[in-house]
């Protein structure tokens, strides 16, 4: 009799556990069924608090980093002063090439700027674990997945990963899943520029792979988009070459890149809305 009661108690416990698991799965299923509106409502309701914490985080971090890097700033300042003088000297030497270069530049700028429509947006969140930022514009503003996101200085940040009604998530080019066709070298004469594929390393770092081994990649060379993958327009600035890693046994070389993007210092970004549609 006692065993019978125990068995019944055990059965009751198992039924509770199974029912609990079933309810949990149902709960998760419903959440995923309405994933987009749930996330959108959550973001819309908490946006003011999120903005407050995001802005204060950004400001506090930049304050700390400037205190911690005061020595570096002094060194950087000195380096920039020297660089400035060097560039001024170079500029006067290059004056004669200005006219012919201007024509090429104009064509490039026309193809880049005049046809594109931008949407101005704020960064409302940055996930440093996965190199994803959240921006304040979404489906309601005409944003679609894979649209390129740039800064006012035409620095490429990444592409729109997920779109919700009132906000979007942007995958930075430093994200490990990101892969962008790039050119290295002279922006004004693309024939002189080397090609490669920029791959994300996470934590705001990237490197360029698949650079042909016979090409010479030098530090400080500019890296910009080549538009081969069809997501990003050509000529968007990405960063500077830090160092190149050449191995004669391999057909391609790699190069580490100092990216210009910095979500911690940028507030406003632009989404190019018509590049994908045109494609």
């Amino acid at each position, binding site marked *: 009799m006692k065993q019978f009661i125990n068995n019944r108690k055990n059965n009751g416990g198992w039924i509770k556990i199974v029912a609990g698991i079933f309810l*949990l799965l149902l*709960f*998760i299923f419903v*959440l*995923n069924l309405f*994933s987009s509106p*749930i*996330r959108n409502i*959550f*973001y819309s309701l*908490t946006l003011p*608090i*999120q903005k407050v*914490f*995001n802005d*204060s*985080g*950004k400001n*506090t*971090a930049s304050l*700390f980093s400037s205190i911690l890097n005061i020595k570096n700033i002094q060194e950087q300042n000195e380096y920039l002063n020297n660089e400035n003088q060097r560039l001024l000297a170079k500029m006067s030497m290059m004056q004669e090439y200005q006219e012919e270069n201007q024509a090429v530049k104009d064509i490039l700028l026309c193809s880049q700027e005049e046809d594109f429509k931008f949407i101005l947006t704020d960064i*409302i*969140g*940055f*996930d*440093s*674990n*996965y190199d*994803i930022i959240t921006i304040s514009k979404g489906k309601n503003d005409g944003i679609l997945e894979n649209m390129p996101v740039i800064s006012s200085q035409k620095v490429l940040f990444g592409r729109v*990963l*997920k779109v919700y009604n009132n906000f979007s*998530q942007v*995958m930075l080019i430093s*994200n*490990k*899943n990101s892969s962008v066709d790039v050119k290295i070298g002279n922006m004004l004469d693309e024939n002189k520029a080397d090609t490669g594929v920029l791959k994300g390393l*996470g*934590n705001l770092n990237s490197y360029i792979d698949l650079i042909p081994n016979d090409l010479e990649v030098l530090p400080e060379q500019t890296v910009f988009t080549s538009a081969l993958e069809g997501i990003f327009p050509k000529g968007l600035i990405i960063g500077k070459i830090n160092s190149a890693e050449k191995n004669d046994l391999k057909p391609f070389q790699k190069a580490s890149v100092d990216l210009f993007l910095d979500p*911690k210092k940028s507030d406003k970004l632009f989404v190019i809305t018509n590049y994908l549609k045109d494609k």
Partner: protein
Amino acid sequence: MSFKIIFFTIFFFILAIIQARFLTYFSIWGSNLNLVFISFFVYIFFNNKRSSVQYIVNQNIYFALLIGFLLDCFSALPFGVNVISYLIIGFFIKKMQYNLAEKSDNLPISYFVLLFIITFIFNELFLALSFYIFNDIYFVNLNWFLLISFLYNLIIACFIFYVFKKLQIKK
């Protein structure tokens, strides 16, 4: 609903926003402080007195669901990943505590550190596996980043443990 539940609901809500929007700017070598995980762990670890077992279990389930939901809202993963992870962690801590409690003092630091190591690594691996399965972003760093992240979080967790322990002794 008791005052304690309401207080901790608001507390975890604000903490989730702080973690997603504030602490993300203070990473050390790419590792972030997982304050929500630490707080949930400490809450579950110390939530074992003056109530019936069923009441504690219900509370733990409620907070695991709440925290999981909040973290899933900020995550690029489908809903449910953090919910399941936190539910498993909550059950595991309680189960281990009931098994270990008979042997010695109820809340020694050694149990705390041991359980923290197991649950933290489980949480990281579970998230990494989820990212891999859903192939949304990438397989999370499971190299020295995990070690730094683990040490960073463990130090803060131990500090919070001593604060809670002192508060408990005072009570």
